[in-house]
């Protein structure tokens, strides 16, 4: 444990966020339990992915971790201090270290500010450099995220979704952060553009020595760039583990269902497999017992009454399910991707080789 704590950069302890909503019901104010008792460690230099369907509390958790909102309960430790209890002024100074990339680059960028002003703002707020230095820094950041330096004088509406997301990333990098939290930074983008942005984030992480927390609703998207994954359902973490281990053998029925839902780009994989039915239930009145029991194919009577605790089952592996051993035994043979045909493999490797060579010879830019 002691060796583990040394490189923990950000830690949530029993975090909860309740949003009061609507009328008083029988004298009691109802509330949405958006995040409900989450404990989580983020290690320095890693990429941690938080995955779950819409409405599971991922954005709320991300905002709590950076204290963009205050928790109803619990603590968030950064650099040994509980930032959930820090005075506002001190918190503002810490913002330099902790930055956010929003899901919708449209709504998160001020349409009346030029791209240059948008990227410069965090540097101004934290009093970094003088105007001339900042201007140069903006140009450098723009080039670094694959855009042209001249774009500084343009406005957000002139850019495509992928370009706007690059602008959002440049802005997040401007203050020289240590931790970057991306709330579904690629979910709204085309698949081809997702790949560009994911590769960019991966490069920047190395270059700027960042710790990344990536929120996603799709397990495939973060497979290639995360070291660890936490799966969230209705405000709780239901499984957590190292990426390779978790994908090789998910232990929670929900994780497995998320994997099975991903369309595989091969018509031979067309599945008749069991699919998750229904929607995520309302967090206003979460199901009793295991919150997943209303949709779980393995649910039994015990699941409906007895809430499974998140328990350590292997080093670095936690799961909250009464029947995780059964999930482990059943395996995920159905998930195996059929191999592409020889012709397809040959041409795909031809394509990849040519693209790589080209991208190495021409400095990556423009897009």
């Amino acid at each position, binding site marked *: 444990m002691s060796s583990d704590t040394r490189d923990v950069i950000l830690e949530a302890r029993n975090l909860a966020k309740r949003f009061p909503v609507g009328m008083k019901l029988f004298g009691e104010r109802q509330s949405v339990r958006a995040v409900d008792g989450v404990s989580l460690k983020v290690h320095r230099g890693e990429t941690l992915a938080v995955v779950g369907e819409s409405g599971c509390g991922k954005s709320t958790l991300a905002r709590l971790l950076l204290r963009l909102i205050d928790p109803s309960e619990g603590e968030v430790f950064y650099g040994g201090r509980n930032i959930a209890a820090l005075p506002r002024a001190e918190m503002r100074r810490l913002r330099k270290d902790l930055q956010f990339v929003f899901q919708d680059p449209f709504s998160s960028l001020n349409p009346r500010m030029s791209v240059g002003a948008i990227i410069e703002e965090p540097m101004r707020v934290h009093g970094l450099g003088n105007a001339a230095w900042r201007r140069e820094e903006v140009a450098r950041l723009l080039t670094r995220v694959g855009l042209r330096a001249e774009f500084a004088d343009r406005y957000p509406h002139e850019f495509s979704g992928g370009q706007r997301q690059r602008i959002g990333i440049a802005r997040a990098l401007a203050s020289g952060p240590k931790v970057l939290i991306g709330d579904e930074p690629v979910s709204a983008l085309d*698949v081809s553009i997702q790949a560009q942005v994911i590769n960019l984030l991966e490069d920047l992480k190395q270059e700027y020595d960042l710790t990344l927390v990536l929120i996603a609703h799709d397990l*495939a998207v973060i497979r290639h760039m995360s070291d660890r994954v936490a799966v969230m359902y209705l405000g709780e973490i239901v499984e957590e583990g190292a990426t390779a281990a978790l994908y090789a053998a998910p232990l929670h029925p929900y994780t497995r269902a998320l994997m099975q*839902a991903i369309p595989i780009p091969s018509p031979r994989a067309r599945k008749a497999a069991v699919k998750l039915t229904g929607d995520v239930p309302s967090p206003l009145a979460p199901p009793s017992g295991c919150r997943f029991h209303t949709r779980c194919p393995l649910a039994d009577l015990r699941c409906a009454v007895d809430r499974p605790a998140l328990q350590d089952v292997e080093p670095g592996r936690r799961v909250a399910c009464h029947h995780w051993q059964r999930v482990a035994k059943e395996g995920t043979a159905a998930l195996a991707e059929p191999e592409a045909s020889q012709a397809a493999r040959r041409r795909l490797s031809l394509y990849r080789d040519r693209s790589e060579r080209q991208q190495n010879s021409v400095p990556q830019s423009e897009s």
Partner: protein
Amino acid sequence: MQSDTATLPAAASRTPLLAVEDLALRFGGSASNVVDGVSFDVAAGETLCIVGESGCGKSVTSLALMGLLPMPPAEIVRGRALFEGRDLLALSRREIGKLRGDRMAMIFQEPMTSLNPVYTVGDQIAEIVRRHRPVGRTEARARALEMLERVKVPAAKRRLDDYPHQMSGGMRQRVMIAMALANDPRLLIADEPTTALDVTIQAQILDLMRELQQETGTALILITHDLGVVAEIADKVAVMYAGRIVETGPVGAIFDDPQHPYTLGLISSVPSLGERGGRLATIPGMVPTVDRMPAGCRFAPRCPFADAACRTEVPPLAEVAAGHAAACRYAPLERHFGDAA
């Protein structure tokens, strides 16, 4: 691929329900065609997927077929779209309005934009039935209930009186499907019906569409930017890039024998659940806008195989195998570029 006379390939293939021939569209004043010579067809019971990145002209194409593209600013440059023997592009606004919602229907990405927030979903389905059928209120409402049950909305009877905002995104998309299918259309165009949904809900909706299509024999054109979705549901595929179809064929051929560099790029950029295998391959850059369409092959600025000839000559869509065609002057690539050279 085009035939001037009515010489349809006899017997061999199913008679298409919709045959689009050499469709070209432009927006008034722009330098090039936003849709530039597109041909495809779809038969009853068949699913055609049109796949390409945002901005490739997929929505403009489908809106034009449904008579929903405002003209002006848009104009038809050439081409025709034969549906049950009539050219959709030549119909009056009134005539095509009569077909839409009846013989053919469309579903959009964001149901909230096509559902009216102030009417219950039951009323909206009933209203589309009554617009095209001589039925009374009770009968229309019964049909609405039947449709909600068919698209598997739980507790359909109760949900009939829900307003759209009371439903989840997945449920609203089911309602859209119910509305579209209410009058048993022969053709359904679904424009990115699952793009705004979680993967879990996407899987449910794709299953539902597949199942309903088997029941009804409707011809389905499904538009998407995601090849994973294509693999799940398509019989035939048309890969669209910058207003042109660059590859087309049966779904098996597109994945097992992909020819066009754009198709290869799309396949490569789909993230998979497989082993962490280094960087994701991407397609650099982005789709050109109409005022900046490159001459020659429109994919050339992003194509790793492009050379000077590509930038001047438009590569024709040429057959590489029966029913499988690609618009690349260097297809098959290995013949010109050797293996992993």
